[in-house]
């Protein structure tokens, strides 16, 4: 774990327990609400009102207002669902998998990455429900004793997905909240105003940092990380089963689970960087979120990007090698069909442009990383668009061929969820410590207990 000295440190030198505590808790407790925050939150809130409007109209008129029809029945709803849930995966990867791998640099980014996971899963969860057509009957997805005397079909990947996503949301919430408890106690003890003392005090549940409590806490936290690790890998695997269990050309492949998981982490780290870079700038947190974090995240993107590239290569190879006329037609259709422009754009965004991350100088340049992360997010969205739309729009029978065009309601719902996500992020930054204070303390040299 001890890195060579050429690397940037995880925390800038000179910090103590007190300075780390004060710096992070002051953002929540004492700093006045800045105009920038108000503007950002206001804008994001306004956009999420657009979501409310689009959803309200959807409930009034039904899914006919969207561009979905036969043969493309899935459209934007499923594209956005997969995109959002993929983004969430980076948060769990950072908080659970890197914890188990003892990558202590993750301590400064895990809290807001977990918050990102929660909000991304909330956005993702909306889409399948809105797509149901009769969203008020969404509870039929769960097995409960009912007067109709029917039960969900547990052999269907769509029911697996309900369990995978709801378990993922629950465990992510628990993991995030458990991580917050000691920091909420810090906020309770630091705040000078009765109302905030009460609120943070209630949430901290009387945490007093007892050695016995810490021992159980650490065990529970590690076990949760151990449980979340297979969970996060299973969630996108199950999402890919939604496709791979079907017989549609381009979906029915065994490469899907690993390729989906890699793509999820790829887009998730892009979102982490797109959030971390402005946050550390506006809140002056360069001491805690250092160039080391940016560099490491860029390396993860590079690695997962190459796994995704391997997935594309295998898809194309199998299209040719299988000798299946539908599979080879799909490959031809991607390269020359009506949506070929988007396929080339996808290859540019996901394969070509991210290769510049091999250059060390770009990996430590916040501006370039921000831009490249944006490109990757667009690329990963296009990937899901290609998978859903290009496979569906040319059905097995030529008489059933069609085209898919998103409507303004599709766009409004999609952009609305981005607003909702950002509004939640803004609230989180203002109300809760965005960096785990107690885990930052353990990184300081003075935290070491020297043997007697």
């Amino acid at each position, binding site marked *: 774990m001890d890195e060579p000295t050429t690397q940037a440190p995880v925390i800038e030198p000179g910090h103590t327990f*007190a300075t780390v505590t004060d710096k992070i808790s002051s953002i929540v407790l004492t700093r006045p609400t800045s105009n920038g925050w108000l503007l950002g939150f206001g804008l994001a809130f306004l956009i999420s009102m657009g979501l409310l409007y689009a959803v309200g109209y959807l409930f009034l008129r039904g899914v006919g207002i969207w561009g979905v029809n036969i043969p493309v029945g899935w459209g934007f709803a499923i594209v956005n669902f997969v995109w959002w849930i993929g983004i969430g995966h980076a948060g769990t990867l950072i908080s659970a998998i890197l914890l188990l791998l003892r990558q202590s640099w993750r301590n400064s980014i895990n809290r807001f990455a977990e918050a990102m996971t929660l909000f991304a899963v909330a956005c993702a969860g909306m889409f399948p429900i809105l797509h149901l057509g009769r969203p008020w009957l969404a509870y039929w997805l769960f097995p409960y004793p009912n007067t109709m005397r029917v039960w969900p079909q547990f052999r269907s990947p769509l029911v697996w997905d309900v369990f995978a996503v709801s378990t993922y949301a*629950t465990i992510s919430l*628990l993991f995030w909240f458990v991580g917050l408890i000691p920091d909420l106690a810090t906020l309770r003890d630091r705040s000078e105003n009765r109302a905030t003392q009460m609120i943070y005090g209630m949430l901290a549940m009387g945490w*007093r940092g007892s*050695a*016995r409590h810490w021992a159980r806490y650490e065990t529970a936290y590690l076990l949760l990380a151990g449980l979340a690790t297979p969970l996060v890998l299973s969630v996108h695997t199950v999402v890919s089963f939604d496709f791979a269990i079907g017989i549609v050309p381009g979906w029915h492949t065994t490469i899907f689970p690993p390729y989906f998981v890699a793509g999820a982490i790829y887009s998730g780290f892009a979102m982490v960087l797109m959030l971390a870079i402005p946050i550390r700038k506006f809140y002056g947190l360069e001491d805690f979120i250092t160039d080391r974090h940016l560099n490491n995240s860029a390396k993860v993107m590079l690695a997962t990007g190459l796994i995704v590239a391997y997935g594309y290569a295998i898809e194309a190879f199998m299209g040719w090698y299988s000798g299946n006329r539908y599979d080879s037609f799909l490959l031809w259709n991607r390269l020359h069909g009506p949506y070929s422009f988007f396929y080339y754009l996808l290859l540019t965004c996901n394969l070509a442009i991210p290769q510049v991350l091999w250059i060390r100088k770009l990996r430590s340049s916040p501006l370039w990383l921000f831009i490249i992360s944006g490109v990757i997010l667009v690329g990963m969205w296009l990937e899901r668009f290609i998978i859903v739309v290009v496979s569906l729009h040319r059905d097995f029978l030529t008489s059933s061929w069609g085209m898919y065009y998103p409507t303004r309601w599709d766009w409004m719902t999609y952009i609305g969820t981005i607003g909702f996500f950002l509004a939640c992020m803004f609230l989180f930054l203002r109300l809760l410590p965005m960096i785990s204070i107690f885990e930052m303390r353990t990184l300081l040299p003075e935290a070491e207990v020297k043997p007697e």
Partner: protein
Amino acid sequence: MKRTAIYGMMAEFDTPGDLVTAARRTYEAGYQKIDAYTPFPIEELSEAIGFHRNSVPLVVLIGGILGGCSGFALQYWIHVINYPVNVGGRPLNSWPAFIVVTFEMTILFAGIFAVLGMLALNGLPMPYHPVFNVPRFAFASKDRFFLTIFSSDPKYDGIDTRRFLESLGARSIAEVPS
């Protein structure tokens, strides 16, 4: 626990190393009912105060087994007993298709048991606790390290215990009113 007006005696230390040494010596001096309070987890400390029985892993194991069994049992009961649907003559107990939900339920129950079990074993939520009566204790969540000897300890004595804590090099010592 004896009902007394004094809950214990609290000593404050500057560094985690001082606290661990002090805790070890207190335990070795024969004090049994002690606790230490720190702003972050210190691995050596729970050993030093003589805390060995951590039953969180057992609780999580029970949760996981319960979740997995009930997840599979739910699907088996639905598809084999209560609502059998014949799909092309395939077996009703199509267990490979039940693996995903069984797995998810295992994780869900184990995770919930881990969190609720940890909180329950720690006795949280606890709205009131005597240690918070010491004003300096607010720093236990920032940068100070505390050791408390409870008055319920048979060896506890207002004067001797204070003298003992002073000998450990505590920065400040305070009685904790209950």
